[in-house]
């Protein structure tokens, strides 16, 4: 029982990342009709916003300490971060410690700018082209972006630790009076799940309860009619691309402490997120979120030792197996809309 609860928790945080990326993918597909294979790269760029801010906050004043030597036996260089110089050692250390949450503030404008630039600079030229062309060009863009990140940051993962206050894990067993040390879960992963729920809720509220969102939804349903009414729907769709990029970026920032960011992390999530979108139903935002969590939880259950002992490797294929079953029984996906990708 404890194992099932643990893997369920695991699935929720894994599903959070799938859901956030799939949500952005669906937003872009639903508004612009573009299959964006560069969306994983946006997730990766978000994580590197946290890396960049951490590096900026760690920029240091270098002084020579004649009492110490470096690895070559020369007088050692001592680095003191400028933020500690300016704000004092304690406040400076606190700012550096909180670099990941602070990176959320940096990531929103950066990701919107990256998203808008990507859409205006490249993707808009492929709106009327077949989906295969869109996939090729966005996949190529993803490779360019990841190679750029590798060029500037190297190939190895770079640690972006969570604030000291959130290190450690919550002992569910001890909290409810059963065996301690059996159902434990890291605080940061619980925060990631809560964060994902807030972002998903905010996106849905934005689309549901604002005039802007209403126009976008109308455009998703019938683009031509909205255009005839004199509304510049293209401009709003471009902004939705920026919003989708921001969602992916924020997911990446918060994911950094879970797995150290590296240039390839976007690709690791991209294919799975596409499967999530397809299972949820192309163009369906609730479907993307539902499928994200469902597949995350199923993948975790398939990783249980008892399951792996019976069916080795099941955790590697479970998502694809589920996708096959869903598509065979419900070709439009779980919550897919009629007419989407059916022409």
């Amino acid at each position, binding site marked *: 029982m*404890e*194992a099932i609860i*643990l*893997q369920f*928790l*695991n699935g929720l*945080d*894994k599903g959070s990342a799938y859901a956030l990326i799939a949500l952005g993918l669906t937003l872009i597909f639903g508004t612009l009709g573009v299959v964006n294979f560069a969306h994983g790269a946006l997730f990766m760029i978000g994580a590197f916003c946290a890396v960049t801010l951490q590096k900026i906050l760690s920029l240091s004043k270098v002084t020579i300490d004649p009492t*110490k030597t*470096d*690895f*070559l036996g020369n007088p*050692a260089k001592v680095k003191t971060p400028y933020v500690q110089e300016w704000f004092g050692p304690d406040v400076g250390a606190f700012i550096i410690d909180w670099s990941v949450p602070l990176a959320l503030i940096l990531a929103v404008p950066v990701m919107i700018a990256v998203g808008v630039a990507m859409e205006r600079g490249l993707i808009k030229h492929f709106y009327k082209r077949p989906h295969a062309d869109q996939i090729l060009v966005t996949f190529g863009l993803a490779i360019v972006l990841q190679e750029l990140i*590798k060029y500037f940051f*190297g*190939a*190895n*993962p*770079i*640690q972006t*630790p969570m604030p000291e206050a959130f*290190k*450690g*894990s919550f002992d569910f067993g001890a909290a409810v009076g059963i065996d301690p*040390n*059996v159902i*434990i*879960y*890291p605080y*940061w*992963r619980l925060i990631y799940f809560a964060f994902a729920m807030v972002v998903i809720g905010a996106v849905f509220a934005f689309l549901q309860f604002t005039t802007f969102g209403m126009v976008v939804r109308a455009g998703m349903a019938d683009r031509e009619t909205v255009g005839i009414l004199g509304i510049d729907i293209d401009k709003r769709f471009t902004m939705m691309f920026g919003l989708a990029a921001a969602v992916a970026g924020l997911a990446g920032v918060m994911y950094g*402490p*879970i*797995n*150290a960011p*590296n240039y*390839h*992390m976007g690709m*690791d999530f991209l294919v799975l997120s596409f499967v999530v979108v397809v299972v949820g139903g192309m163009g369906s935002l609730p479907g993307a979120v539902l499928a994200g969590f469902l597949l995350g939880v199923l*993948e*975790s259950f398939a*990783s*249980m*030792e008892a399951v*792996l002992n019976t069916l*080795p490797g099941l*955790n*590697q294929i479970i998502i694809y197996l589920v996708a096959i079953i869903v598509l065979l029984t419900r070709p439009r996906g779980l919550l897919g809309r009629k007419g989407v990708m059916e022409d």
Partner: protein
Amino acid sequence: MTKLNLTRRGLIKTGAVAGAGLAAPQLLLADGHAGFTNAPTGSTVTLGFNVPQTGPYADEGADELRAYELAVEHLNGGGDGGMMNTFSSKALQGNGILGKKVEYVTGDTQTKSDAARASARSMIEKDGAVMITGGSSSGVAVAVQALCQEAGVIFMAGLTHSNDTTGKDKKANGFRHFFNSYMSGAALAPILAANYGTDRKAYHLTADYNWGYTTEEAVRTSTEAMGWETVAAVKTPLTQTDFSSYIAPVLQSGADTLVLNHYGGNMVNSLTSAVQFGLRDKQVNGKDFQIIVPLYSRLMAKGAGANVKGIFGSTNWHWSLQDEGSKAFVKSFGTKYGFPPSQAAHTCYVQALLYADAVERAGSFNPCAVGAALEGFEFDGMGNGPTLYRAEDHQCFKDVLVVKGKENPESEFDLLEIVEVTPAAQVTYDPAIFGGDLGTCNPGA
């Protein structure tokens, strides 16, 4: 639709051209030979450095390449000579190899066996490389070693830790300076017993490929021999990035020790997950929970950050060693590049020098003569104490370092501390235990 007009004359012409094209690589192989592949005839000799320049181990590959460039500089008489000054053999004079200036070409293994074989083949057939060296993966090492055996050139392996490289997959043309999984297990076990006792329950997470298997087997054999029990051993896919679903069940298994048979990005991510799940803060079976990483590298430790503190592992070499060879190498490398070399850089630099020295002692670039000069060769001054290149399996036997993640690093490079230098005798084994057959050396041509 295009119509294909195939005539007898056309077919013969096409066949002749295609035949000439297919024969070209063989002609290149045979060009200027003196009974072996790519015998150097001019005033230069070309070495092939096959390292991961892209892919997950690109940083290690970059460090390997830096070491090779430094070795070439020293071989040609440039720089301060580095380890050539401390090497027990004095055959190298700083005038190239056998008086020929050393030049080099590079290939990108991408840490993929097929890509590594293709780049090695290209360097042999197109660039005339007389020796191939490098790599940062056992899968790649085994694949390229087999290719070099077929092509008739020497392969001086880079960073490869699987027992198989000089075990069941050993080849007469292949030589490894780096240590292996068996040695890691043999060196670690006594330290683990001394620090954690002989009554432990271990849970293994193992990378699902060649190196992972041999490392798990080596650590299990060594720890079980001293009384530890292995409660579970779970294979993890090489492509796994989030290890939470593998880490979560560890405490429920009753294990009090987690062994991460992972390398590179796998190790960084699995260790990070284990620390996040608070395993190291727990007490199980009345003991503090412990994590072990059998193969450490400084570059990996850098990636894992503070998570490595206090965790035991083994390594082939570390820049903080105070023997004359290590100091000379760190000085040369550090002065040229501004940071200390990694263990990957060290083994590659040493392999380049050992090859050159063997050629000088043999008086020939013929791979069979070079192989004979390396077999049974005993040397010192290269950073690991007295070392033997064992003739039976072409494996170097030398001291092994047991290290621990440093609690209070004094610099960004000061991540590991050496807790024990395990003597070579303690990690030496019977070459027959891993099977395989060296075969006979192939001079090619």
